[in-house]
């Protein structure tokens, strides 16, 4: 799929968790079977918006994530469409066995919408910054994994998740990010989206790194290099075809994610390229390390997750292709 965009300078920033809260409440108005669960973080994950609108269908499960996930499984087994939310680090780490055995193994219709993913959590520090959640969710059979790039894609992904019968992991962020997609954008699970066409290098990005990749493409263009930017919001199912076709055109690849370079988008791209069309790949992401306290901007710089880092990676990939 193709949806060509240019980032607007100075545009309003919206956090994907805010878009989730609104989209969930909207969904609740349309579908009486939608219910929401939270583990004492409803004001942060924004399920409180749903809870206020539909108090009977909102279940605060307290600080007990394991029970929340398996309760969601029970609600799904009885025909409900539960959205279970907490911070990504708890949803995927603390309750991993419940997500595995109570939700994915029986293919139950539970949507896990996890906020505060990655290091843009900021000041809370490494204990609260999930750098491994995509890897943990991606490896589970039956699971669909979506990492929306902005507010608009989040709203569309919430609807797509509800329409899909089966477990879905939605990765949401705390910090505001620029608007990338207009109202005409149609999100489809399992489809990567070409946001900018180029013939020198493919930049595969997800989440907050999509905006950074678009900025990087602008900078590369200033140096005479045409980068193709691909938004890989569906980590699973993974759009092998779009990714492989892009590198057939460019011959060099960069992956960019606010996650460990192991097992997430970088891992998925590496698997795809190795099996379909091997080209040089440079992975931008956390290099097998936990995060720490700091402002989101400081952390993105400190851990090498900026447009400038993507530019460097792109040049390295192009360089390696030439030797």
């Amino acid at each position: 799929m193709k949806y060509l965009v240019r980032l607007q300078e100075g545009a309003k920033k919206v956090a994907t968790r805010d878009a989730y809260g609104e989209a969930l409440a909207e969904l609740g108005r349309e579908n009486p079977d939608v219910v929401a669960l939270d583990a004492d973080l409803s004001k942060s994950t924004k399920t409180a918006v749903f809870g206020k609108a539909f108090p009977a269908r909102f279940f605060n499960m307290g600080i007990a994530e394991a029970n929340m996930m398996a309760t969601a499984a029970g609600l799904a087994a009885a025909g409900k469409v539960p959205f279970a939310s907490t911070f990504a680090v708890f949803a995927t780490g603390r309750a991993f066995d419940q997500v595995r055995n109570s939700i994915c193994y029986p293919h139950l219709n539970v949507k896990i919408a996890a906020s505060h993913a990655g290091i843009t959590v900021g000041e809370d520090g490494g204990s609260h910054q999930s750098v491994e959640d995509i890897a943990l969710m991606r490896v589970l059979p039956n699971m669909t994994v979506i990492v929306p790039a902005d507010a608009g894609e989040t709203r569309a992904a919430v609807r797509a998740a509800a329409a899909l019968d089966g477990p879905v992991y939605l990765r949401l962020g705390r910090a505001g990010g620029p608007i990338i997609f207009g109202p005409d954008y149609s999100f489809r699970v399992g489809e990567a989206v070409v946001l900018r066409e180029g013939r020198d290098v493919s930049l595969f990005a997800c989440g907050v790194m999509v905006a950074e990749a678009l900025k990087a493409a602008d900078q590369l263009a200033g140096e005479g290099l045409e980068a193709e930017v691909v938004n890989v919001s569906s980590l699973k199912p993974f759009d092998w075809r779009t990714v492989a076709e892009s590198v057939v055109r460019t011959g060099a690849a960069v992956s960019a994610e606010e996650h460990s370079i192991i097992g997430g988008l970088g891992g998925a791209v590496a698997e795809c390229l190795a099996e379909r069309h091997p080209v040089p790949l440079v992975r931008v992401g956390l290099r097998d390390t936990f995060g720490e306290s700091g402002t989101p901007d400081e952390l993105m710089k400190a851990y090498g997750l900026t447009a400038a880092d993507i530019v460097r990676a792109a040049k390295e990939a192009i360089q390696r292709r030439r030797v």
Partner: protein
Amino acid sequence: MTAAAKSGHPGGSLSAADILAALYFRVLRVDPSRPGWPERDRFVLSKGHAAPALYAALAERGYFPVEELKTLRRIHSRLQGHPDMRKTPGVEASTGSLGQGLSMAGGMALAGRLDGCDWRVYALLGDGECEEGQVWEAAMAAAHYRLDNLTAFLDNNGLQIDGPIEQVMSPNPLNDKWRAFGWHVIEIDGHDFGQILGAVDEAKKTKGRPTMIVARTIKGKGCSFMENEAEWHGKAPSPEQAEQALRDLEKGGAAR
């Protein structure tokens, strides 16, 4: 069944067998010809390793042919080593990783109440299983949400794989713990059908809180060489031992 499969959990299956028989033949509002009937009662075997007892009850109740029980744990069988709701008609929840079933039962009870339905949810837990922290998260939540449409049984056979629960990691005093967590607690002999059915009636009449029926049971019940022996938790009998077990069980049945 476990002898034919050459693996499985006979001890904890036999301790729960009387409760399962009472549930499937006297208590549960189910229709084996319509396993997905929306108005059915739900039963969650939280101690999923007692799957052989559940399968036997389901087969005898008519969900699938009794002969199919011999396929337990075999490749391509609908009867997995632990219950799989996607494979076996009548199985309501996939369990086996201990501590998760009561949470699932709680979710079902919330859904039923939300829809104003009168179907009820039953669950069966092991006493060793109560060593899992999630059990107490679920206990707290069920009482918090006043799930009086949820009734749980505790198969209190006193043994787990590595030995007596008191020695391995005591979850006792179980009755007091469940009471403290806000549940209505009934203590019974888990091999006395009158007491099992009486407790279920009491649970149905109990409003505003869930009920835990703590059933004192004997691991390996009805089988002379297995009774109260922890080593029979996860070991299948040999063909000769299985013959002996069946003779014991028939004798026990006749005596009753």
